[in-house]
């Protein structure tokens, strides 16, 4: 099986700080893979380099056999990569429907008009916001903003979805809903790279995990095995617990 996302020797520094150091990993089609690690370990930076928000200093990013290294974000989006943001970023002057329409209009197939409106409703229904397209995003609750952001990401019809702590900040019942949604996507064959701190979600969703610490990959493998490795526990909890 050929890899859908292939990252080789990615490297990124901010001034004197090496944020990502020689990171390589692959995602296969339909996989939901967890990208874990303590705060500041470089997870978001890796996602930014895949999605084109940041250019890497060295290394390569390849999606579906296309070299996306140093490509601008709008072109990466057209190659089937969509993302959400660690802190939700709704577009406040746009309605809920318009937020989603944007990705349809500028995504892979450039939908517009009646057909696009139907698709917007379809995406909203998928994330649980059916019939709420006319609302102002400012009036949405936190989880609904997260839902809307997911709908916006899905509206560009990606084959690879990057979720940066999409489940963070949800209460237990909302978390259940969120996990179900991702599982639903998984059922549809979506490939997902999931940055997540909530172990319940990771165990439920990810067949495989990649663990980073201080910019490097320190462990990789099936979730059940990786999460119990001393080196991973140490990275998360400090030396005392190893």
């Amino acid at each position, binding site marked *: 099986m050929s890899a859908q996302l292939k990252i080789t020797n990615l490297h990124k520094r901010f001034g004197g700080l090496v944020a990502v150091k020689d990171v390589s990993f692959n995602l296969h089609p339909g996989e939901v893979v967890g990208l874990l690690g303590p705060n500041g370990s470089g997870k978001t930076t890796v996602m930014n380099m895949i*999605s*084109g*928000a940041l250019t890497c200093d060295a290394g390569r990013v390849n999606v579906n056999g296309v070299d996306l290294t140093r490509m*601008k*974000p*709008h072109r*990466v*989006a*057209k190659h089937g990569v*969509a*993302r959400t*943001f660690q802190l939700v*970023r709704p*577009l*406040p*002057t*746009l309605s809920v429907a*318009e937020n989603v*329409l*944007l*990705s349809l*209009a*500028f*995504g*892979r197939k*450039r939908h*517009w008009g009646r057909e696009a409106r139907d698709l917007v409703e379809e995406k909203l229904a998928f994330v649980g916001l059916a019939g709420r397209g006319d609302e102002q995003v400012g009036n949405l609750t936190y989880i609904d903003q997260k839902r809307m952001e997911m709908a*916006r990401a899905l*509206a*560009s019809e990606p084959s690879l979805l990057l979720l940066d702590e999409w489940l963070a900040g949800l209460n237990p019942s909302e978390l259940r809903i969120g996990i179900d949604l991702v599982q639903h996507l998984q059922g549809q064959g979506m490939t997902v790279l999931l940055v997540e701190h909530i172990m319940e979600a990771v165990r439920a969703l990810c067949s495989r995990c990649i663990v980073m610490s201080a910019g490097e990959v320190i462990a990789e493998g099936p979730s059940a095995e990786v999460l119990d490795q001393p080196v991973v526990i140490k990275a998360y909890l400090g030396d005392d617990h190893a």
Partner: protein
Amino acid sequence: MTMKTSFAFALAGLALVVLALAPLVLPDYWTGVLLGMTGYVTLATAWALFSGPTRYVSLATVAFFGVGAYTVAVLNEVMPYPLVLLCAAGIGMTMALLVGLSTLRLAGVYFVIFTFGLAELVRQTVSWWEVNVTYTMGRYVFLPFEGRHIYWQLLVLAAVTLLISWAIGRSRIGLALKALGDDETVAAHAGVDVTRIKLLLFVISATIITLVGAIQAPRWTYIEPSIVFNPTVSFMTLIMALLGGAMRLWGPLVGAVPLFLLFEWLSVSFPDHFSIILGLLFILIVFVMPNGVLAKFDDLRKGNRA
């Protein structure tokens, strides 16, 4: 097209006809007022085309306006008038392309300062050129136009500008503009080529502004840099659009009509204090109406932090 849109179009068409017939019955003075007002309606609408949704506050209006007027002053005896207008549009477009490519990366206040500087730079360059290269201090525009001829041309340009604004507002480009005004990063990740769309709108806006200057040139007969590159034009355009609401189709028009009449009255009644009053009015509008139509500009470029 829905019933509502058809009705709005019919109404706008009717208003256009009435406005076009007005000079036939009005005294010349009022035709002149209508002319100036139509000029500012066009300037404010064109300004808002780019600056409204993107929130890039441009003070370069008079740079393009003046270049349009100067193009007519230089070329009016060399080639037929329609060709002169075409040249002006071409020059404005080229200038906007160059300026846009080099400055649309600047954010917030840097862009404001740059555009203000640009207007001064263009004015100084034209002055220097005229004094040192062509040895002319000013130029005469001899075109057989009366006020109403100029007015009719401006009226057509105003209608076309509103039509462009309407069309963009309902196109995917309009959606992208609003989105990038909120958050350029999010827009880019949704697939919007942010740089290209900003450039496109800046060029359209600047070309229209250049044409306003070109069409109005014959009104002055005598033209020199201090007249056509007067920064007041940029400021007036800006406050008209802000007062009415730069994010709406009719906003700039709604702001331009009363403010133009007010300025007209002020410049006649208090010619010596006009600038001071203009400045005070500017401050008043910005400070007293923060929750009105200006609220949108309060968080100037707020959404664009990456």
